[in-house]
């Protein structure tokens, strides 16, 4: 390694460690690391901001930024309609507040909502309702909260827009919404079924509540929750436009980010100049709900990864991977699946996915004769294809290993602790480890059946 490569690697790993330590806000770390790389000349600004044809994986991925931005705008408005609280209360009453059924129905609801909208927002809206339901049932809320949080991460795995790692993988790997429906939704459904079985087996004989307490939950009046029906109709229309747009974007020749931005712009236009939000009548703009710090975090990371790409660090890493696995797609896929799952369980999975994306983009140069089917042909080559999905399944599902593995789990634990019900690291593991191990084993079987068993012997 050259001195410059070592310096860039050091900056990146130091940022990685600081982000994992959660001592300093991760956005500041990412922006400082990006600034440092630019100031020291480790990456040219042109490459860092706009990419470069000879550095695949470098550049700020504006697809990811605008897709996140569009979905943030839509969910930021929709969260004020009461739709999520209404759904949670309706499903609780549909199962007559029977505790285990309640946990399962709230988990499945959270998984489905998380597949289409930001997981953290979903959790921020569902968890208070879950806490109040548990309070009305006079029971410990933790067996309700942990499965709901885990289900949010599972649900987010299913689609392109469900989880930021998938947005990044979709953009880097040129996969559309329907590619994720085809390759990520089936294993996610299998994992969700396994999750329900594990939760049911684990909790069915442990939760007992009185009929009186159940009657209390049944008396919650969900019709009071929808505060602004015209606003809800506009949000549902924008979401419908977005989802139809995602389904057909490939046929229309539009990128997913374009669809999200168009749906968000449509919603903002429908809202008019001064939106009315209960409790926020003054000085309120819809843009307040956009998580700018998350977008800046992504931009900072993309700049840092650009440095690693331009200096050839990523190439050295992909050469190393090809070396230790002998270039075997099966070995690389399984290694990537488990490695991503463990990394995701230990820290925020975004920096890891940003790096792995760049590495997978470099692999065709190591493995395939040059000029194989152009860029799209090379990164979708049978020897490369399973790696994308191993990364997606590992990084999304592995986040459930520990309470710090995903923002969703951290937010749930924070709300629960402030409500007087702390969830210890150890208590979370009792749910997280079995569910995640089963998830990853299901992913292995799925990857084997879908990609690996049909590989030509030369590639295996």
């Amino acid at each position, binding site marked *: 390694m050259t001195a410059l490569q070592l310096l860039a690697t050091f900056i990146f790993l130091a940022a990685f460690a600081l982000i994992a330590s959660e001592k300093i806000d991760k956005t500041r770390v990412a922006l400082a690391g990006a600034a440092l790389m630019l100031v020291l000349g480790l990456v040219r600004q042109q490459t860092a901001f706009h990419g470069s044809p000879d550095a695949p994986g470098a550049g700020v991925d504006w697809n990811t930024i605008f897709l996140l931005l569009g979905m943030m705008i839509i969910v930021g408005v929709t*969260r*004020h309609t*009461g739709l999520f*609280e209404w759904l949670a*209360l309706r499903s609780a009453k549909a199962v007559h507040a029977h505790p285990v059924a309640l946990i399962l129905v709230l988990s499945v609801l959270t998984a489905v909502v998380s597949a289409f909208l930001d997981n953290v927002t979903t959790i*921020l809206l569902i*968890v*208070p*309702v879950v*806490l*109040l339901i548990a*309070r*009305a049932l006079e029971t410990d809320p933790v067996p309700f909260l942990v499965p709901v949080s885990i289900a949010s991460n599972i649900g987010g795995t299913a689609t392109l827009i469900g989880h930021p790692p998938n947005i990044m993988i979709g953009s880097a790997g040129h996969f559309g919404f329907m590619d994720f429906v085809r390759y990520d939704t089936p294993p996610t459904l299998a994992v969700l079924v396994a999750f329900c079985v594990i939760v049911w087996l684990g909790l069915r004989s442990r939760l007992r509540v009185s009929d009186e307490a159940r009657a*209390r939950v049944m*008396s*919650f*009046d*969900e019709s*009071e*929750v929808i*505060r602004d029906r015209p606003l809800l109709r506009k949000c549902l229309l924008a979401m419908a436009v977005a989802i139809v747009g995602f389904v057909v974007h490939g046929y229309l020749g539009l990128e997913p980010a374009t669809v999200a931005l168009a749906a968000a712009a449509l919603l903002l236009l429908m809202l008019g100049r001064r939106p009315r939000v*209960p*409790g926020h009548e003054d000085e309120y703009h819809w843009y307040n709900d956009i998580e700018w710090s998350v977008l800046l975090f992504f931009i900072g990371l993309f700049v840092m990864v650009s440095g690693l790409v331009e200096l050839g660090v990523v190439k050295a890493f992909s050469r190393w991977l090809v070396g230790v696995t002998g270039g075997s797609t099966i070995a690389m896929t399984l290694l990537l699946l488990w490695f991503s799952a463990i990394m995701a369980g230990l820290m925020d999975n975004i920096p890891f996915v940003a790096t792995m994306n760049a590495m997978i983009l470099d692999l065709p140069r190591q493995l395939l004769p040059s000029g194989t089917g152009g860029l799209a042909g090379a990164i979708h080559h049978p020897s490369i294809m399973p790696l994308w999905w191993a990364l997606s399944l590992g990084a999304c599902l592995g986040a459930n290993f520990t309470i710090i593995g995903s923002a969703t789990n951290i937010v749930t634990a924070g*709300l629960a602790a*402030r*409500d*007087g*019900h702390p969830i210890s690291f150890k208590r979370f593991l009792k749910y997280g480890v079995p569910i995640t191990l089963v998830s990853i084993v299901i992913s292995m079987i799925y990857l084997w059946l879908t990609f690996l068993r049909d590989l030509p012997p030369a590639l295996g």
Partner: protein
Amino acid sequence: VRAVVRNVMNREVLTASPDESLTAAAARLLRSGRTALPVIDAAGRLVGVLSEADLLALAMPESVKALEDAAFLPPGFDPLSLSCASNPPPTPVGDVMHTEPLYAVEEDAALAEAALLMLRHGLDDLPVVSAGRLVGIVGRRDILRALLASAGDSTGSAP
């Protein structure tokens, strides 16, 4: 009348000490007729404020605070309580009083300074200090009364 806080504030002010129990201080707050009870140390220095809003927030579980609207809760189910799990009694005032930022005005401050603090931070009553020591309390009503009086003066003096 010079429009400074000293001229409109109330010098008879009930206070709390950081070590006393929350319930005793809360009862005094209600008796005071003000919305906030200044908390002072043995030397008479202002160290915090215990307001009605602080007490309501304390009684409210995080699950309710996180809601956009609690209209769906049925009449028989009320999660508000001054002794919830995260706050078992007896709690000393010092644990729950508002300290950072500690909003107060100097006794020679302009009424506009006090009024702006009240509007911007949703405060009804502000402790008044002089060199760090509590000397009084001023409320929205005190300021309005002064404004009304001076408006009366000017209309009265018109020919």
